């Protein structure tokens, strides 16, 4: 395959949001392209995105040269300082097995280190053995298995009551 290009231009990432919406289960998606544009491209963005792009002659069967993306943002560890969290990593099925996912993840790591981050964090489902094995082989640490950290979430009515001080 010809050299892969990874871009960070706002215009590319904006168009890539269509792919993100299309590929996920539609009833779970509560935000729109407009939300993504507002939240990712304002003065204090909530996230950053990078795009994997192939040359025109290698574009996908349905005509897209943009064939993968990663969405990430900076977080903070009160023990270690600046960190980067990779929320999404995606490569279109016909382009998998060619190192594109790894290249995207490596780029997020490089950008994170350049910003003074000492960790790259993300989550994986416990039944997703092939992904877990892939990450563990790269030297990752399963913080949930090894240390016992559980991910917790408040949303909807529970969040509303909490914010009102009801609970």
């Amino acid at each position, binding site marked *: 395959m010809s050299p892969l290009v990874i871009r960070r231009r706002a215009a590319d990432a904006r168009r890539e949001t269509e792919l993100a919406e299309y590929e996920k289960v539609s009833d779970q998606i509560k935000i729109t392209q407009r939300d993504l544009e507002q939240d990712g491209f304002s003065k204090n963005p909530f996230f950053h995105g990078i795009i994997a792009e192939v040359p025109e002659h290698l574009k996908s069967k349905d005509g897209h040269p943009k064939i993968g993306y990663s969405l990430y943002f900076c*977080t903070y560890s*009160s023990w270690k300082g600046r960190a980067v969290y990779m929320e999404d990593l995606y490569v279109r099925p016909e382009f998998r097995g060619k190192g594109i996912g790894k*290249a995207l993840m490596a780029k997020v*790591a490089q950008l*994170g280190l350049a910003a003074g981050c000492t960790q*790259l964090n993300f989550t994986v489902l416990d039944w997703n053995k092939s992904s877990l094995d892939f990450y563990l082989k790269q030297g990752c640490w399963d913080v949930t*298995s090894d240390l016992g950290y559980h991910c*917790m979430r*408040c949303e909807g009515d529970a969040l509303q009551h*909490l914010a009102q001080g009801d609970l």
Partner: protein
Amino acid sequence: MKFTIREGKPEDCKDIERMIMELAVYEKMPDQVKISHKELERDGFRSNPYYQCLVAEVPEEQKSKDGYTKVGYALFFYTYSTWKGRVVYMEDLYVMPEYRGKGIGKALMATVAKVGKEKQCVRLQLSVLDWNKPSLDFYMAKGAEDLTAKEGWHHIRFHGEALDNLAQEAP
């Protein structure tokens, strides 16, 4: 007991550093704390801060045995869900042992939720150690769901040499 919850200021960072260590001791990992009040000041109080914080303070006449009036804190930041949008992540919630059971932890967490909702966040997320039953019970009582137990999510991390090696492979 009278207490106030207010936004953290740069001059609070030494007390926050103290309480971060107390929390790390409670979580049985004090050797994992590598940053000091200097990094907290640099990273929390610039034009694009990496985190926000709240401090719980008691009046002088109710100061702790060791003379502290800053007796609790919450440290949080904004994250993003590509399905649901803006999220507030509560990295730390801590109240000194002698001030527990008086509603301070709840007030801190409620303020994080309120600040998050004002920013149109639709979720509040955090992590808890699986053996930390008092905290798990506290959060579940407030309507939190354990996504690890319920859906199987595992938190994965690259750091140190593994992170350096990965970054070197970037095109």
